[in-house]
């Protein structure tokens, strides 16, 4: 992995304040950071530290109160709602802690869904979906609905759904939190493999030590502030690549 990877995400003095009635709650307090491309980056911190809020801001599903957020070179704070939706459809894949698959769609259809949003032709959709099902080892479960899959299988479908459109960034919010350690390890290994194959930037929000141990770039936050930015030696030597 290159040490001089260009930042795919750039935050400059970003503040996010929630209004809870008459009380303002600062979730993110003046954070500036660069997240390089093609890396396995982690946003770590205890519960309530602002990890998910930061991930939401990067994922363009929440707006900063102030500051500037650039994703893939685009100042996303200036984009109107529809343009943001289109931007997410093209550039960002999401993996959620609770898998969040569409329950009425089969594994195949869940993976195919993001490709419909970018208007991909049917033949190409089919080819990519089948390839992705194969890549996550769920070819045999293609027709099964989420309620017929195990937790690990659901998360594999979620990963496949996030990666099938070959996004620039995949954002994963506590992806192993609902999995046992063995399944979590398998999921982490799979994401690592696919990140290497697709050269996608993975950004995690987690406090799972098993996952953090695979980090190539770590951003530690607490109380909405960036405490530390760490690049493990393994990452600089390309040990994870």
């Amino acid at each position, binding site marked *: 992995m290159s040490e001089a990877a260009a930042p795919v995400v750039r935050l400059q003095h970003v503040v996010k304040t929630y209004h809870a009635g008459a009380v303002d709650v600062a979730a993110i307090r003046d954070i500036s950071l660069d997240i390089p491309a093609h890396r396995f980056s982690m946003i770590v911190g205890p519960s309530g530290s602002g990890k998910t809020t930061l991930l939401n801001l990067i994922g363009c*599903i929440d707006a900063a109160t102030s500051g500037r957020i650039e994703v893939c070179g685009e100042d996303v704070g200036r984009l109107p709602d529809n343009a943001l939706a289109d931007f997410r459809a093209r550039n960002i894949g999401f993996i959620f802690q609770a898998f969040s698959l569409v329950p009425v*769609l089969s594994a195949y259809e869940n993976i195919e*869904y993001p490709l419909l949003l*970018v208007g991909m032709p049917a033949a190409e959709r089919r080819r990519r979906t089948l390839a992705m099902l194969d890549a996550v080892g769920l070819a045999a479960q293609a027709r099964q609905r989420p309620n017929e899959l195990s937790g690990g299988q659901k998360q594999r479908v979620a990963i496949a759904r996030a990666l099938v459109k070959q996004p620039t960034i995949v954002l994963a919010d506590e992806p192993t939190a609902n999995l046992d350690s063995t399944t979590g390890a398998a999921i982490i290994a799979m994401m690592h493999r696919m990140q290497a194959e697709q050269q996608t930037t993975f950004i995690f929000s987690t406090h799972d030590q098993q996952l953090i141990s695979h980090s190539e770039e770590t951003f530690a936050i607490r109380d909405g502030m960036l405490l530390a930015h760490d690049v493990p030696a393994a990452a600089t030597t390309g040990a994870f690549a």
Partner: protein
Amino acid sequence: MLFKIAFRNILRNRRRSLMTGSAVAVGAMAMLVFGGYITYIFAAFETGLVQRIGHLTVFRSGYFVFGAGNPAGYGIDDYQDVMRVIAADPVLRPMIRVITPTQSLLGIAGNFSGGNNAAKTFLGTGVIPSNQQRMRQWDEYGVAPPEVPGPRLSDDAPQRGLIGGGMARILGLCQELKLENCPTPPPSRDATPAAPVDQNLTALAQSELGSGDVKNATMPQLDLLSATANGAPNVVTLEVAGVAVQGVKELDDNYVAMPLQLAQQLVYGRGEHKATGIVLQLVRSEDLRAARARLQTLIAQRHLDLEVRDFAELTPFYVQVVRLFSAIFLFITLIMGVIVLFAVVNTMTMNVMERTNEIGTIRAMGVRRNGIRLQFVTEGWMLGAIAATVGVILAFIVEAVINHAGLTWLPPGNASSVPFRLATPAEHPPLLIGTWLALVLLATVAALLPANRAARLPVVDALRHV
């Protein structure tokens, strides 16, 4: 994918969808069955009227307002020329099925034969029997009841007429006409004054008929007294062929039908014979407006002192019945609409609440707000369409069952029961299509409110929803 997701989500909450769908389906069925009922009633009612009085009647100006008090004074001059003009008109000719004159008259009917001494006022109408018979065969909607065999007027029997059941009873003709459930009137408490009337009427009748007239000895006879157009008294003898029971008691007690020639003889004597009305029965009711407009044009072009009235104007009761049933139908439609609206809004709101996290997920994946809105509106539309289709099928079944149950009913103004049936949805396509479209549109509109709410949800709030 939009339709696939919508359809599967409808099946996902089967019980809820079933309840909501039932409301829509029952609504559709109720509207179609009741619509079929009133469609049949309107058609049957209209058919009965058109068979009796045609679609349009040409009167002398002022007859409609004042003529009932003096029909003889409102006779149409040269009515046969007017009929020829109408029948020869190239616009009207293809529309007209029957064109025939009628003569209305008022007078006193007396039964002085066989020791009877009864007299009463009558409301008479003179028609051309063969034309009247042809008019009775009009059945544009296929709802006319089968013709009941019975006494009829005949072109070959110019003295022969029919009277109302009440008239027969009052004049003591029950036994002679062999009528059932027809009591004989009690002896008059004040019979003395009738004798001069008896003598006068008989004398008048004899003078009008002359010595050459031969009476039919097998039929009871009535002496009809009326004032001629000139104001002179006149009398004719009517052979009563039978009874034509009328649905309205006042009419039944006063009704006398006779051939036109006899009516004209009574009203105009040896003077110029006129007619109070020229009746037009059209091939199709939908031509009524065009035919009326053309008639008015003809009347205006020829400077005729005539006016045109349609059967609804001549029968205010028809208009009242139509308005009453239309109001009931509207009321039922509104109730059904409100039920469907609330059912769909409730179901879709619950769907949005249950699927808030799913909404957040697909919004995060790049679905626009309009995409969310479209998804829920599609579900509402689809639920409405499926349920309305089921309702249409149910309506077909209910109507088939009722139509084969052999039920009968007494239409307003009718004297006897007729088979009861409903117009099937296929027989009234506008109602079928209108009901289906209205319910689907209602379900779609009802889904719009929750769909908008779903579309406006902030993505992060939706994702946090448990």
